């Protein structure tokens, strides 16, 4: 299992701030796709992804027990 954290409007969209899914061995790209389907999050394409508090690229493969945070860039200022 991996732990997934949602931030900003992703929370409102998915209705939760965190969740657990099977994801070990998959790439971030694959996980984003699954999360969009499973949690009805529409906006993951541009979300930055951190694994264990470190940004990773889309081809990064997650490991069992990883904490994956999706942080959508916001534009207001």
């Amino acid at each position, binding site marked *: 299992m991996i732990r997934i954290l949602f931030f900003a*409007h992703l929370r409102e969209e998915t209705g939760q701030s965190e969740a657990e899914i099977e994801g070990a061995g998959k790439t971030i790209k694959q996980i984003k796709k699954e999360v969009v389907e499973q949690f009805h999050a529409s906006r993951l394409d*541009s979300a930055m992804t951190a694994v264990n508090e470190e940004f990773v*690229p889309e081809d990064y493969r997650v490991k069992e027990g990883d904490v994956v945070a999706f942080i959508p860039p*916001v534009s207001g200022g």
Partner: protein
Amino acid sequence: MERYSRQILFEPIGREGQKKLSQKHVLIVGTGALGSATAEILARAGAGRMTVIDRDYVEESNLQRQHLYSEEDARMRWPKAAAAEKRLGEINGLIDVNSIVGEADAALLEELAQEVDLILDGTDNFETRFLINDISQKYRIPWIFGACVGSFGMTYTIVPGKTPCLQCLLKQMPMQGLTCDTVGVIGPAVQMVAAYQAAEALKILTDHQEDLRPSFVSFDLWKNDHLEIKAGALKDESCLSCGAQPAYPFLSREARTKTTVLCGRDTVQVRPGKKRDMELSALALQWRRAGWNVEGNPYLLSIEKEDLRIVLFQDGRALIHGTKDEAMAKKIYQTLLG
């Protein structure tokens, strides 16, 4: 130096740091909520020269979080940059503040880049941020990204040659509208981002680069989250903005944009291909004769007829209110100004 005594007593700055600060030039792009806050902090701190740019004017709905502005500014529809310059001058008469009422486009930023030491992000859109990012890399000027919405905020300090750049972090420009400020924002989220930005700014301006925060910060003041994320792994040698063979894609792409939908404002900005110098008083007369309701100040005219409201600036830019339709906005602009 007495007015800066508390800051001089702060050991990392001291007398030497204060002197360095007084010799630096900071560019603040956008003086909405974030830009207001960082500008005030740095003006009080004694940053020697500040240039502020903003394309918008003060409205009542700004006052909840944009600390430089007053009800009078909103009533007069004073351009934010000009109102900021006036207020900053009242706050600290020892520094040199220069305001630009206009669009932070590639040409203007390239011109200013020759003489600034730091760029602070006070914008509300990624189009301008990617432009700043390319300018920062091309002229080797650090810049401090900041953004917020609701109770959520984020900030990152980008130092050319050291950290990943915005392009490395985001890979692509986030789609317009996705993160628009339609859900509102609370003042504390603004002040938190601005505090991070201003602290980093003080470190850079007093030559304490070694103390810069290496992480990307993201927080939610309502949900009580705080994340510090390491970003080094995203530095991309093939990045077109900061990689081994940079092309600064946004500096050339930008020149084509003529209309921009302003985030969350139901407003489209129309820019003429070339800057114009408008005879505002003559236009006001002409439009009043045509039955329009025209108000104004030395910087702009606000024109109303039926459900249309248009604000025209001296440089020929216009804000068409009440629409998100760029084609329609362009048509209205052309009808008015030919």
